[in-house]
């Protein structure tokens, strides 16, 4: 117990960091997981959508701020940018590319998104340049919160402490409610579980797919937009994001929304504690968690063997 007396406070700090990191990871991974559930495509371009969402939010935010908008306006701008990117790029990608591919082998579908990722990486560079971009007005406006640490006090940004976890929780709750209790949501679940049967029941699977992909794209963009106030957007940010999201999705069990939340939490907290206990292994944490989980639960945390469902 003496260890805890000494380190208990540090554990508390690590928890706070882990939670906000988990929230950010969840925001990216949940869209990927949703799309995978319905379409059975692991969308590599999800990382690009994340990056574009971030860039769009930063650009829009800086533009609005230059018009003299108050700093609180930054928050709705982030959301608006995400919706815009999702609504524009989502249907475009789904209609023009993925729909034509839906009867092909899964590996071909996956590679289509890989090709798209390569194209979008360069387009994003041409559109937004290579200099790091940031939009931190909302974060500055919200200020910091002092968290007591023994006799000391450690400042955390309110954005990190409240906004990120808040939005993540809200997203989780909304998705859970929509999927369980609304007609549209139940249609999505039906297509996820059994596409053929769902179509036989008269569900317009094509429409559901389009809707899900658009929602997934918007969620990716929202993940990027939410990150825009804290991180610096640079070329290559999509590539490192997507590989982390893959780990979350595989750990979670495919198509599992709640699973994605738990996996993100595991990875977020795991990484945070690693920085305190064994900083040299921080990078390996997501993969170590994934391998460990799959060792004991080959279908992922919440995955159900054989039957597939959200």
């Amino acid at each position: 117990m003496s260890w805890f007396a000494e380190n208990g406070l540090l554990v508390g700090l690590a928890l706070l960091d882990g939670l906000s990191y988990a929230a950010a990871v969840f925001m990216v991974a949940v869209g990927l997981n949703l799309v995978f559930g319905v379409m059975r495509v692991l969308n590599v371009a999800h990382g690009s959508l994340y990056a574009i969402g971030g860039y769009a939010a930063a650009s829009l935010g800086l533009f609005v701020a230059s018009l003299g908008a108050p700093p609180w306006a930054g928050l709705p701008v982030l959301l608006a940018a995400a919706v815009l990117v999702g609504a524009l790029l989502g249907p475009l990608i789904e209609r023009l590319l993925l729909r034509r591919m839906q009867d092909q082998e899964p590996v071909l579908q996956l590679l289509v998104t890989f090709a798209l990722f390569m194209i979008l990486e360069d387009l994003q560079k041409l559109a937004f340049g290579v200099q790091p971009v940031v939009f931190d007005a909302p974060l500055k406006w919200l200020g910091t919160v002092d968290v007591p640490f023994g006799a000391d006090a450690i400042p955390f940004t309110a954005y990190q402490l409240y906004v990120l976890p808040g939005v993540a929780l809200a997203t989780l709750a909304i998705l859970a409610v929509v999927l369980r209790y609304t007609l549209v949501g139940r249609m999505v679940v039906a297509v996820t579980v059994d596409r053929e049967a769902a179509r036989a029941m008269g569900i317009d699977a094509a429409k559901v797919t389009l809707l899900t992909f658009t929602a997934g794209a918007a969620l990716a963009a929202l993940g990027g937009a939410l990150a825009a106030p804290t991180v610096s957007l640079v070329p290559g940010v999509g590539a490192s994001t997507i590989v982390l999201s893959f780990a979350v999705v595989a750990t979670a069990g495919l198509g599992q929304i709640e699973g994605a939340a738990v996996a993100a939490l595991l990875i977020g907290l795991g990484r945070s504690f690693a920085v305190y206990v064994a900083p040299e292994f921080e990078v390996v944490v997501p993969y170590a968690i994934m391998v460990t989980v799959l060792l004991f639960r080959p279908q992922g945390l919440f995955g159900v063997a054989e039957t597939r469902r959200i």
Partner: protein
Amino acid sequence: MSRRAETLLALAGAALVVGLAYAVPWLRFVLTIALAKGLAVLGILLLLRAGQVSFGHALYLALAAYAVAFGTAVVPEALLLVPAAGLLAGLVGLVIGLFVVRYREIFFGMLNLALSMVFYSVLEKFYAITHGADGIRLGPVTFLGLPLAGETAEWTVLGLALVLVLGFGALVRVALASPWGEALAGIKTRETRLDFMGVSPRRVLLIAYVASAVMAGCGGALIALTTRHVTPALAYWTTSGELVFIAILGGAGSVLGPFLGAAAYELTRVYAAALVANAWQAVLGIVLLCVIVFAPGGLWGLIARRRRAA
């Protein structure tokens, strides 16, 4: 296509490679790299036959490349280094294979990805030994006891690559036509049928996995001998993605596909990089997209179709 026609095409291809390497010296390097990657892709092809996609075979590529780089300090003989590196990759492939062949599809792909990313991190972490991202340079290499340098080295490694490619290509061609090859394809169509026939799908897949690790290892050893400088980037997930990319580009229909794909990939990349140095990635993406959408059988599929038509 008949075995004879394929043999003739393979020999013609080899002659073309030698001719090109003679006529255009700078292509010697590019073609050697293409053959080396093609060898690794040949392994990917085996797994594709079983419907499994590995996003982590860069692990074996990098493992063997580093083995060669460290090995030159102990034994500088290329004829010992390459088999030793291939064997090492095969042994590690056996250990990992025993674990991953229990998984299918996305879990199989993601586990491989996770393990290769762990290896990538290890290469970065054990900085004192590996020099991290700076990489390590190969010591002097000999071939049959004669020192390898300059143009002789280029021709020798190219020759070695051709021998390995033809050898492994023939081996895979024979293996795929054997009952084992049929069983491998059975994993893709309906795995349970194999079980009913008393064939263990896991064992069938394990053999393919180990073979693919050996081939990736030989490819990695050749890459090390060609570039003479190895870095952890060889183990990064995008390298694995590149291998799958080449497999699809070339077409999974024949053992010639991987080499066709690798040559097309490397040549497209150097030409694209020369034309548009800052958007070569997009060019590559567009090429892949076109191949998948308009010629799902890959480049090999195009050739085979034309032959049938003729």
